[in-house]
């Protein structure tokens, strides 16, 4: 996955905010992954249309004091792909 790739959630998973957990979660057959804050935030921008670059730009705009989230987002994308949470939309 590179900066111009378009990530999408794998069909196995559902992503939602869980009030009781105070966290974003990924739901799958008979299971749940509780996501930490940054992971939940990044995944909430994954919609099968935005590129990785687009998501990075949105997050940098939202958190101007973070000093650039580029590397963190890319690392997360690779990890999420490895875990089969997301895949790459073929353009």
């Amino acid at each position, binding site marked *: 996955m590179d900066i111009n790739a378009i990530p999408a959630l794998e*069909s*196995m998973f*559902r992503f*939602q905010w869980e009030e*009781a957990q105070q966290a974003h979660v990924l739901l799958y*057959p*008979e299971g749940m992954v509780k996501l930490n804050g940054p992971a939940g935030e990044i995944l909430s921008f994954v919609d099968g249309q935005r590129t990785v670059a687009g998501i990075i730009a949105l997050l940098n705009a939202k958190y101007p004091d973070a000093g650039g989230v580029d590397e963190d987002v890319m690392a997360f994308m690779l990890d999420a792909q490895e875990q089969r949470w997301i895949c790459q939309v073929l353009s």
Partner: protein
Amino acid sequence: MSGGACQGLPASLPKTHGQPLWLLAELTYKCPLQCPYCSNPKDFAGFNDNELSTDEWVRVFEEGRKLGAVQLGFSGGEPLVRQDLDILIREARQMGYYTNLITSGVGLNERKVESFRDAGLDHIQVSFQASDETVNNMLAGSAKAFQQKLKMAREVKAQGYPMVLNFVTHRHNIDQIDRIIELCIELEADYVELATCQYYGWAFENRQQLMPTRAQLERAERITNEYRVKLAAQGHPIKLIFVTPDYYEERPKACMNGWGQVFLTVTPDGQALPCHSARMLPIEFPNVRNMSLQKIWDESPGFNHFRGDDWMQEPCRSCDEKDKDFGGCHCQAYMLTGDATNADPVCSKSEHHDLILEARAEAELPATEPLLFRNERNSRVFYKG
């Protein structure tokens, strides 16, 4: 809550506990199949006329969601028997549950798979009895079951659902584990549960007829591991989950990840249980018809019964592993020793461990009795109501 000790309850209520993340709705005990390892109570026939209504189930789902439940399993019996299943799916999905249909596939058709998807069903688990048609149908007590299951498993995938295939394994099918895995690959399962039979309910009655030998089990586990390596090397996404039977362990399983910690079952007639076998225990469990789920989960004596470790006897009480397995399975302790507060006899520290050793020895011998099938007629023998 005060005065608990007067009622023979632990005095330190309420005890710490988690949220019921998993809500299992056993919608009905009715089932067209007769699997001799069914985990339903042996006396289910006595509860068949008192099923919760649609509205009652919807209220239970709402109350569960407020308590933090997020996974909802529609189970049974065969949940497809309920004519209001699509309504229940729709309501639950709108509340934000991840909805799981746990079915034999018998009673399913193309149209239902589609209407459930429209209602928001997230996942379908289809159970098989064997990879071989004759064995499958013999165990299910139905001549048409196997072909129907194949057809429905293909339909589930064709309509885009994640699919789990579940095989309960035992001495009659475990030697075909390679063919079972091949079938699951062919059917494009996402997850495969190779669940070695656990001896509760009907399975306990049929234990000698079902329990595999240690050699059978080790072979099945080895073959499963070989497949895992091979499939991973191919980058195949299928996941094989091998559930080992505790009868061949020396330490008990941490049953339900702790009593009343993450799991809540509601039976067809509204009884709330910390585990789907617990109905057999000599404990009074609350009914959702006359108590809210919140009160049931947080305050009821039934759900607090085995929370914490005040209830433990030796060897559990002083055991340095008690926080790992919580004394094991209380139903197993009750079935085998008559006292649910005993250590699970699976544990080699239990003074009753010889009962497990005897069962293992029995597994080496040919079965002496025919299988007892799970059906209304046989169930009435157990019902003393």
